[in-house]
């Protein structure tokens, strides 16, 4: 199972002087059970792309399928298929609105028509999952939480609906390093422990390198690169042309190679990079000893 886009195009405000084509003929597959990252410059079409995934925007042309079902048909099965895809927008905390954290998280499940016990259970589970202690925070106003906590409460509201696919638009933007780290771990755990397929937008290639097993790079509404991180990050020139930067670690490794260091292979995470450098240093020592 997967989400599939076939020749999807999207035009904003067609037939007006402001007409702008935001997506051009995009075909791609987002496989179930993986973590897929989408990167691109501002205006590259990333956000337009993810809004196609649960029918918030309908393609001007082309087909979007979730688990083999065309979600833009007017049928019950299409509506059910859309519900499989949960969406966490940028600065998700701006969408908190209820009096208490508990009510805010319960909003989605209640709309789904679940029983009160089921809603309660899901709220507790979701709060527990994003590290918000139920007894401490359930009755508080969401607006009294810190920035990182508010973001997590907003994400809990989506998790409580138990989506099969979870789409996050720049989930860690604006958080401090510890907040970023905590939330990235939570997202990884959603995938590893609950088996949720993750799709996330990020500008940060370090985060993408650590989390994703598939990377999609957009440029001016078109799909520029698609593949496993190690394949995509090899193309540092192409990435640069899209207004992005390859992970700092892979750039460091490239510079060291250019300067004549005998490094085998490439690395885009710090851990791997440090090992490669150490291997090269060992070889150099051996050479000098001979």
């Amino acid at each position, binding site marked *: 199972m997967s989400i599939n886009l076939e020749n999807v195009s999207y035009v904003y405000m067609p037939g007006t002087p402001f007409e702008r084509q935001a997506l051009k003929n995009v075909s791609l597959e987002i496989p179930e059970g993986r973590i897929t990252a989408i990167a691109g410059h501002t*205006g590259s079409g990333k956000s337009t792309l993810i809004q196609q995934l649960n029918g918030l925007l309908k393609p001007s042309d082309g087909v979007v399928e979730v688990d083999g079902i065309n979600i833009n048909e007017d049928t019950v099965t299409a509506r059910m298929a859309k519900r499989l895809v949960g969406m966490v927008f940028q600065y998700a905390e701006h969408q908190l609105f209820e009096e208490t954290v508990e009510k805010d998280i319960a909003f989605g499940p209640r709309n789904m028509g679940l029983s009160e016990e089921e809603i309660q259970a899901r709220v507790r589970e979701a709060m527990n999952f994003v590290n918000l202690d139920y007894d401490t925070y359930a009755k508080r106003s969401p607006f009294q939480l810190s920035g990182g906590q508010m973001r997590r409460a907003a994400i809990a509201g989506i998790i409580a609906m138990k989506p099969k696919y979870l789409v996050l638009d720049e989930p860690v933007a604006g958080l401090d390093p510890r907040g970023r780290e905590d939330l990235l771990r939570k997202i990884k755990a959603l995938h590893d422990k609950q088996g949720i397929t993750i799709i996330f937008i990020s500008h940060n290639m370090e985060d993408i390198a650590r989390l994703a097993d598939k990377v999609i790079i957009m440029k001016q509404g078109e799909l520029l690169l698609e593949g496993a991180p190690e394949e995509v990050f090899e193309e540092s020139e192409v990435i640069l042309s899209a207004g992005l930067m390859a992970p700092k*670690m892979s750039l460091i490794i490239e510079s060291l190679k250019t300067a004549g260091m005998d490094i085998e292979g490439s690395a885009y995470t710090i851990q791997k990079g*440090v090992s490669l450098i150490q291997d090269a240093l060992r070889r150099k020592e051996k050479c000098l000893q001979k």
Partner: protein
Amino acid sequence: MLRHLLIEVERLDFIRCENLTHIYNQGMENEYKALDNVSLSIKEGEFVTILGTNGSGKSTLAKHFNALLQPASGKCFVGGRDTSDEKLLWDIRQQIGMVFQNPDNQIIAAIVEDDVAFGPENIGMKPSLIKEHVASALAAVDMEDYRSFAPHLLSGGQKQRIAIAGAIAMNPQCLVLDEPTAMLDPQGRLEVMSTVKQLNHDHSITIINITHFMDEAALADRVIVMDKGKVVKEGTPREIFSDAISMKRMGLDVPVVAEVAFRLKDRGENIPEGIMTTEELVNALCQ
């Protein structure tokens, strides 16, 4: 003689905080001490970065720099002026330009030029002078070609440069930037930081940049680290980032190159202290 010396000290320190304490909701149940006895000084023309986790007091501190907040105790001086003296508020605010995180919340006019002119108009500058200031502010951020554009058609980085132009059109001596690049893509971040660097270098504007990006902090002359309302570390980026362990303990980080150097050293490789750039790492490893 002594008097002369005192004046000299004041000229050099553009901002000086003495035992500055700030308490939100004072006397209420949810009272919260955001700044706890902070003493620091920022020199004229200096480029300072303030680091700290969310809730460490960075933004509260910044709001004292232009007298948006008043000390619960202690003092804050800007250009020698006491921020708790109400008569001086407008003088102080004219010396400090502020730029915030979200470019869309800071732009108000329908045309770039009008937006930049908003501040000078508000302080009653002569129209001929406004024109001049707007033109030179747009030139300083390298956005002259966009003077008649509609701001919503610009990229995030361009919008932030317009926000910066709006601040410097008032001719401030100092710019305080509170996470100006948090919402930008990598190219936008580079644009904004190179503009800021240039304003500091070419126009001698004192820069105070609050950020969560460690590679941006590396551009500064000096880094101030805040934790739980206190200043816990101060030094050059090199000094601050050579201690990766304590930075991480505080929930902060170090630039990737510094991290790589730190880990190599930690594993017993012979690497000099304080490596900050790829070039330095290359030199250290490929002699």
